[in-house]
């Protein structure tokens, strides 16, 4: 059975448009078009090949298709069309420069990710086999390593909008915690010192937008809280 669905799409192509505008479009979808990404692909294939968006895995593991959907950030590939009020208003995720249509420039987001030294540091000579880690210590990384760097969280965070260059933002802070919590990492103190700054960590005002929107059901606020806990316990 086919159904008609109404969309209002944010459009901007810097080569021709002086400023962004909304394109209203009604699309005929069939039963297999369950997810919002199916609809976007259909629009591009059969209605307007100039609509630009990112996508790859279509199963919520690559983090390409974060979009602002009816005012809320989410992944197109995991959002049920039927759950959405029409017209479905699609905009680029907020706070980052728009390159074209639904595609934003993610440089600042990844710069913040790189700034937390996102890798395990252990400069001791490596054993011949794997380093040991107890299941309990390893479990501490659950709820953190699943992050797909989609930026849904950071681009819903008011503190990140105002200070994307100074505030690390929820996604990168989640990763900061990942390396603080990893028993294999040897530079916890340096990591904490680096974050102990009025902006880098402490711009977070626990507004919780980040945890609300994470499509992987992760909770950056909780990770941020844990970083603060570790800082406190070390200070004493």
């Amino acid at each position: 059975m086919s159904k008609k669905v109404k969309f209002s799409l944010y459009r901007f192509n810097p080569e021709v448009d002086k400023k962004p505008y909304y394109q209203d479009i009604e699309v005929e979808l069939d039963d297999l078009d369950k997810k919002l990404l199916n609809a976007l692909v259909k629009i591009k294939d059969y209605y307007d090949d100039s609509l630009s968006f990112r996508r790859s895995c279509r199963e919520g593991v690559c983090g390409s298709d974060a979009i602002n959907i009816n005012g809320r950030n989410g992944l197109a590939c995991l959002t049920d069309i039927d759950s959405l009020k029409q017209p479905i208003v699609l905009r680029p995720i907020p706070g980052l420069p728009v390159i074209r249509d639904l595609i934003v420039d993610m440089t600042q987001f990844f710069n913040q990710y790189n700034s937390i030294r996102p890798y395990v540091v252990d400069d001791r000579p490596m054993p011949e086999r794997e380093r040991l880690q107890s299941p309990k210590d390893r479990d501490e990384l659950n709820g953190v390593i699943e992050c797909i760097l989609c930026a849904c969280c950071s681009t819903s965070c008011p503190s990140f909008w105002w200070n994307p260059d100074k505030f690390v933002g929820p996604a990168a802070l989640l990763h900061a915690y990942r390396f603080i919590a990893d028993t294999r990492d040897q530079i916890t103190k340096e990591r904490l010192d680096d974050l102990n700054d009025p902006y880098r960590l402490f711009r977070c005002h626990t507004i919780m937008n980040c945890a609300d929107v994470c499509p992987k059901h992760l909770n950056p606020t909780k990770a941020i809280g844990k970083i603060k806990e570790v800082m406190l316990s070390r200070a004493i």
Partner: protein
Amino acid sequence: MTLPIMKYDAVIVGGGGAGLRAALQLSDAGIKTVVLSKVFPTRSHTAAAQGGISASLGNSDEDNWHWHMYDTVKGSDWLGDQDAIEFMCRQAVDAVVELEHFGMPFDRLENGKIYQRPFGGHMAEFGKKPVRRACAVADRTGHAMLHALYQRNVKANTHFLVEWMALDLIRNDNGDVVGITALEMETGDVYIIQAKAVLFATGGAGRIYQSSTNAFINTGDGIGITLRAGLPVEDMEFWQFHPTGLAGAGVLITEGVRGEGGYLLNCNGERFMERYAPTAKDLASRDVVSRAMQVEINEGRGCGKNKDYVMLKLDHLGKDVIDQRLPGIREISIQFLGIDPVKEPIPVVPTCHYMMGGIPTNYKGEVVVPRGKDMEAVVNGFYAAGECACASVHGANRLGTNSLLDLVVFGKSAGNSMIEYIKSHGNEYKELPSNAGDFTVERLNKLNARTSGESVADVRAEMQKIMQQHAGVFRTQSVLEDGIKKIKEVYKRSQNMFIKDKSKVFNTARVEALELMNTIEVAVATMICAEARKESRGAQAREDYPERNDELFMKHTLYYNDGRGLVYKEVHNTPLTVDYIKPAKRVY
């Protein structure tokens, strides 16, 4: 028009597991390296790998690389090259330990060692009983591996060109590879990137089929580019159909489900794999399980209204095991079908998953092609690794978890070969031919100039339909002959594709058209190679030739797209140090 030129000692096309492992090797050696990727590296499809990476660590069961090698040879239905297989299986333990040292967050056993689970076709004592060999991070192993490799490259300061698409190879008069052309998506500008050594790590091409576990970006660019450069590709008839793709959606449900104790049921509630593979049952090799499922469906024992799928039962594992070891598949199943596997079985069908064939290489990652009498002459400056390459370790059928292993083992070994080659050439770049880039510019101009013709979406849909119908799990002569005719027609149509959007900035319509020009090459190659192989071996199941025919077909297919057609070369039957594993009937 002359294109602007950039220069790097080493160019790596592809930021998935294979490309990132190679990049690390080169960056750590201080070589001026760049990685190009169509997507930000962690968005590559390696992120979708679920079940695990194989290595005979022996953390839970006694194990060793000889058994791993035997299983891989048997899994390949004796089409794998035994020198490359020995190389990979011997390196496996070190490769996985290295990943742990890179920070990959493996699941752990109580004693702190890496957690391992059973997987299809991985057995102890030369095929006697299943063994726990798959090292896992829940059911998100590829995601964890890809992120760890990317993180390590951040540490090594590897240079990336993100959202750049390689378009063509540049070869000089001698046939050596001296660079590539590439499109910067954000600006729409095209460049020549001159290099001493080029590695292709462009991943799979599962998008030739309608129903596939592969991402949108898995369009076989490396294969298309290689063919257009006048080089052959190997064993393209062999496509793995994964037994458990989510019915209707195509999304993968890992074999790890069966590794943890799940099993398949037909509409009678029968655990039918016990009939087809009495020892390994649901953990037989993938080709075996997929065929069994297809037979059940064809003979009317499928489930559902149209009897067109079977059921994967795992609720008996209990919520705790599912949430601890298989949280991702629970999420997928609820997301895409609204079915919670803690309570109900999951509807699954065999789904296109993995390309065993690819760019022909040796175990050092060097691309090797026929030249005169030499069937494996090295193409100077050209390397390939990962799913786009054919080393050939997977032969006619890949074992689960052997691909992630392949990425890191051959990514590293190709990286080492490139270092050696670059160092032996000092500071000199080989000269670019005077017409470098013309071929690419001509292709782009043609596409741009066309204002009417075939739509990209229509051509793609038609290709996928034909591949699904004519090159599926079971194949016959007449179906394949028809398929060749039809796919050649689609190929012709693809020459006349046009896009309405002619803008430069992030024009994804143009990118999709350029991708399809590659994908269609893969589709044609597959159909032609499958028709010519008149035997059943691994993933190639010919109803009209149900037996393996070692006398006529124990050989690799090489396919050219430029009229030279098919050429065959021998399978390597001399392992590096151990005895040849002689062909036997494959029973699981």
